[in-house]
């Protein structure tokens, strides 16, 4: 119980754990979709404090982790061009491509910059009219409105030297793919709170009905996660399958309508490859034809990318919930945050990085047998 006093309200945390323990009669496998929640779970030892029957399967909700290798390699080629200022969120710099990472490209003397917001990249394009400014537009539905606004602004400003390398991914099609997989063990989902702040919760209603699977919209703080798990277990034990919102302070059914409007203007749905998982139909957004001028893949026509994943890395199995990070032979040995072999060891939302950061070098002794 050494972690319990780290909750901001240990008594409440204790009550939630007690209640979960009290109602649990059977093994359940619950997936937290979002990497931010994985981080919270591992940091606070929530998985270790839960009854042994409850297994938390870490989902693919880390945008840095699932950005396809081919796109990372394209980013590396574009960022290496002499007239380019390549802008990215900081987490992407250490993500291994086939042969190197953006950090390496930067240290080779190329102009690679970390920006806080995609609008910073638009400003850079304004300030450097003779340079090509390329922004690496990755992320889930939470990040997409920001990237859409950057493209919208660039168009309004008539910028000809701004483009975006787009790799947006969407949560509901990923949940569908997991449920459709023959190897699936997930019986319920914690949905990602801030994705729902933007998109609302309505898109999950058909999933709950079609697959009879409980989905609970959950926040990121330890108590939020615990409350999400409590509600999920209650549903599972009662044999119910409902969409519940355990994060009402930031999420409603409709979501953020101005943001959704902008997204619909700028992006359209496309099939998208997920690193370690493969192509998931209709699981991403790309720029609409009207904005193709701003598409870095069109502008730089990067061809003949030959991708090569590390032979040692099992991040695909980690991302599909088939393997816990500390079951990977390279974990903590050949692969550490300083020497990452896979993207899941890079971002703080990656499951491997979370396990490393919080010292999870061995599995809990009473852990369930993993399939």
């Amino acid at each position, binding site marked *: 119980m050494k972690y319990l006093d780290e909750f*901001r309200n240990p008594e409440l945390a204790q009550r939630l754990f007690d209640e979960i323990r009290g109602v649990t009669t059977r093994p359940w496998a619950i997936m937290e979709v979002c990497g931010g929640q994985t981080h919270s779970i591992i940091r606070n030892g929530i998985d270790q404090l839960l009854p042994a029957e409850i297994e938390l399967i870490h989902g693919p909700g880390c945008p840095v982790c699932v950005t396809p290798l081919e796109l990372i390699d394209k980013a590396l080629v574009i960022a290496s061009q002499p007239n380019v200022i390549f802008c990215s969120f900081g987490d992407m710099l250490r993500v291994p491509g086939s042969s190197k990472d953006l950090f390496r490209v930067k240290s080779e003397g190329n102009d690679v910059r*970390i920006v*806080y917001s995609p609008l910073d990249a638009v400003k850079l394009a304004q300030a450097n009219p003779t340079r090509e400014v390329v922004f690496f537009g990755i992320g889930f539905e939470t990040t997409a409105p920001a990237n859409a606004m950057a493209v919208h602004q660039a168009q309004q400003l008539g910028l000809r030297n701004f483009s975006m390398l787009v790799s947006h991914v969407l949560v509901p099609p990923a949940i569908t793919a997991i449920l459709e997989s023959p190897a699936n063990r997930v019986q319920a989902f914690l949905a990602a709170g801030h994705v729902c702040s933007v998109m609302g919760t309505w898109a999950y209603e058909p999933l709950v009905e079609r697959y009879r699977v409980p989905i609970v919209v959950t926040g990121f703080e330890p108590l939020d996660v615990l409350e999400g798990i409590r509600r999920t277990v209650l549903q599972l034990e009662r044999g119910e399958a409902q969409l519940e919102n355990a994060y009402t302070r930031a999420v409603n059914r409709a979501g953020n309508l101005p943001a959704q409007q902008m997204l619909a203007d700028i992006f359209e749905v496309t099939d998208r490859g997920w690193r370690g998982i493969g192509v998931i139909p209709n699981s991403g957004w790309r720029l609409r034809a009207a904005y193709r001028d701003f598409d870095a893949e069109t502008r730089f026509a990067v061809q003949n990318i030959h991708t090569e994943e590390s032979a040692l890395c099992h991040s695909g199995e980690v991302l599909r919930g088939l393997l816990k990070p500390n079951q990977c032979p390279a974990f903590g040995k050949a692969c550490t945050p300083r020497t990452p072999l896979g993207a899941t060891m890079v971002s703080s939302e990656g499951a491997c990085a979370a396990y490393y950061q919080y010292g999870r070098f061995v599995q809990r002794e009473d852990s369930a047998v993993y399939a």
Partner: protein
Amino acid sequence: MCLGIPGQVKEIYESGGVRMGIVDFAGITKEICLAYVPEIMVGDYTIVHVGFAITQLDEDSAQESLRLFAEMGVLEEELRAAE
């Protein structure tokens, strides 16, 4: 990069036709795009992700989250700007 950080809106203005503002995150202030929260006012709390306010939040939950993020040491990391 995926966390949303709560902050308090200190100032609202237009810049190039876009609703922008200054948001305070436990002492760190940044320019934030407010285009997606058209009803937000000075003094209100909001969740900010990569420079964009995505939803409003009440003050108590905002303060709690901020305290937690600061403890986790992720506040600086999430807000770090261009070098």
